[in-house]
């Protein structure tokens, strides 16, 4: 009986460690102006210490059929990188963006996007960020 109680206690007390398990790989926003490449994950950008740091992509639709997409980022050093596109393939790729997306893109001298990539991975979800904590709090009142 005692051994069963000990086992139960061990399982219960080890639960917090299990909750925090999982590989993490934050990708801070990096902007390489020599090669016109920007990348980083949205979670890390959002919860970084720099107030102005961000990364993201978006699409604008207008009546009449005009559509354009764009990506923009600012790193911790204040470097900025913008690009816009009307390319159907690149616009289509933007549908795969999510909250935990790692985003990478390139642009030419005219500011047109030449490459856009997304990667949605569990290791980009930062367990310590307030939104993650709030979500868990709401789920388990």
């Amino acid at each position, binding site marked *: 009986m005692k051994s069963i109680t000990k086992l139960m206690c061990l399982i219960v007390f080890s639960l917090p460690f299990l909750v925090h398990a999982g590989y993490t790989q934050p990708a801070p926003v990096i902007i390489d102006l020599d090669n016109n490449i920007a990348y980083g994950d949205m979670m890390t950008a959002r919860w970084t210490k720099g107030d102005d740091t961000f990364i993201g992509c*978006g699409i*604008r639709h*207008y009546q*009449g*059929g*005009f*559509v*354009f997409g*764009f990506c*923009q980022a600012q790193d911790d050093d204040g470097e*900025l*990188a*913008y*690009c*816009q596109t*009307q390319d*159907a*393939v690149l*616009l289509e790729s933007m549908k795969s963006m999510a909250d935990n997306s790692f985003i990478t893109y390139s*642009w030419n*001298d*005219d*500011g*047109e996007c030449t490459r856009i990539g997304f990667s949605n991975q569990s290791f980009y979800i930062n367990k310590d960020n307030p939104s993650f904590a709030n979500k868990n709090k709401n789920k388990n009142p």
Partner: protein
Amino acid sequence: MKVLVCLNILQLVFIGFILTKLFNLESQIVAQQTEPSPSISEHSHNANLDANTLFVDDALNEHADFLRGVIHEEITASLRENQTAKLATTPSAKPYAANPPPEVDQEYLSEVQSDFDYYLSDGQISDLNMAIFQSKIAKLDQQNRKEMLRKLVRALNSGELEGRL
């Protein structure tokens, strides 16, 4: 692409063939209505004239209705196939293609350009003004809106203009 074009041509030929058949059948029906066939006329000689005329009319009408029904079905099916093939040949990029560009309105173009110059001289553009400016760009013709978007993004990248897209 070549296969689709060949299919289209084949379908058009098929439609042409059906139409030719239709016209032939229509003319045959008209001919039959005006000149009763010998077998029918034989019957008419041996029977009551009124009753026989009714019989011939009914038979011809039934025959014509049946043929019309068959032809209608064939043409509908063929047209549907042709339409499906045409839709299949439409490039996948079409959903993103803008409407045919309107004629270049120089007055409007210079208005958008002067807006841009104003923001550039100010060195910044608010989120609201950015949205308004983008909406104005959207109303330009394809070539000019492409050029204006390039200018906007180049200005943002160079730091001449501060703002968010």
